[in-house]
């Protein structure tokens, strides 16, 4: 795995978009674009049925795997700064679960890199969701659509 000085954080704590935005930009006037993606815990189709979502991860490998994805994004696009936060532990519908923030000179590269990091994070980083609904807990299945979203970057 590649060492990387981009900041990657796996944490139980919630995050503030505003604080992260300021920290990422750090008053650097060479930056012309900042893209922030936030993933949220979504309720199930039968609204109100999701009680909680629990996230498990593989400490050490999760960080290393995201660092590798960020390094590949950097090799592909000219981007200046990246921040990835992924929460673990018990979350409720509406909670923030993941942040991918990318800043650079231009929006096109920042948008693409942000989407790339998110697509690979979903399909490569060792994190697992367990949802509890109607009093029953079950591990969430991986989705083929996520795998296809990541695969499109390989062409």
């Amino acid at each position: 795995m590649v060492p990387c000085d981009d900041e990657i954080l796996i944490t139980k704590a919630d995050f503030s978009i505003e604080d992260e935005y300021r920290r990422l930009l750090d008053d650097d006037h060479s930056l012309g674009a900042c893209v922030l993606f936030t993933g949220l815990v979504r309720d199930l189709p039968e609204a109100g049925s999701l009680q909680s979502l629990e996230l498990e991860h593989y400490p050490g490998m999760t960080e290393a795997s995201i660092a590798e994805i960020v390094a590949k994004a950097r090799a592909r696009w000219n981007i200046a700064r990246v921040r990835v936060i992924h929460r673990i532990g018990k979350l409720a519908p509406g909670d923030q679960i993941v942040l991918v923030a990318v800043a650079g000179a231009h929006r096109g590269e920042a948008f693409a890199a942000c989407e790339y990091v998110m697509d690979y994070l979903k399909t490569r980083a060792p994190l697992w969701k367990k949802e509890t609904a109607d009093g029953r807990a079950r591990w969430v299945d991986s989705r083929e659509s996520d795998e296809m979203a990541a695969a499109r970057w390989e062409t």
Partner: protein
Amino acid sequence: MALRVLFFAGIREKLGTARCELPFSDETGDVLGLVGRLAREIDPLCEDLLLAENTICAVNREVVSREHSLRDEDEVAFFPPVTGG
């Protein structure tokens, strides 16, 4: 002189354990050989669970194939397809 073996998510729950240690021996060979040992020495469920087509194996935090050769002190992890994000 040992192999550290880790289990995550549904696999951890089905085996009822998150980790175990096995003394290293050259006869273990590759990941397949390790699963054979786990099935004999830890839980017969290991055979089906760990060799399932969608189970992922990582050695020292890198995803590997079932034919990956193991060395002493390796950390070997087994987990289901990932669902973060």
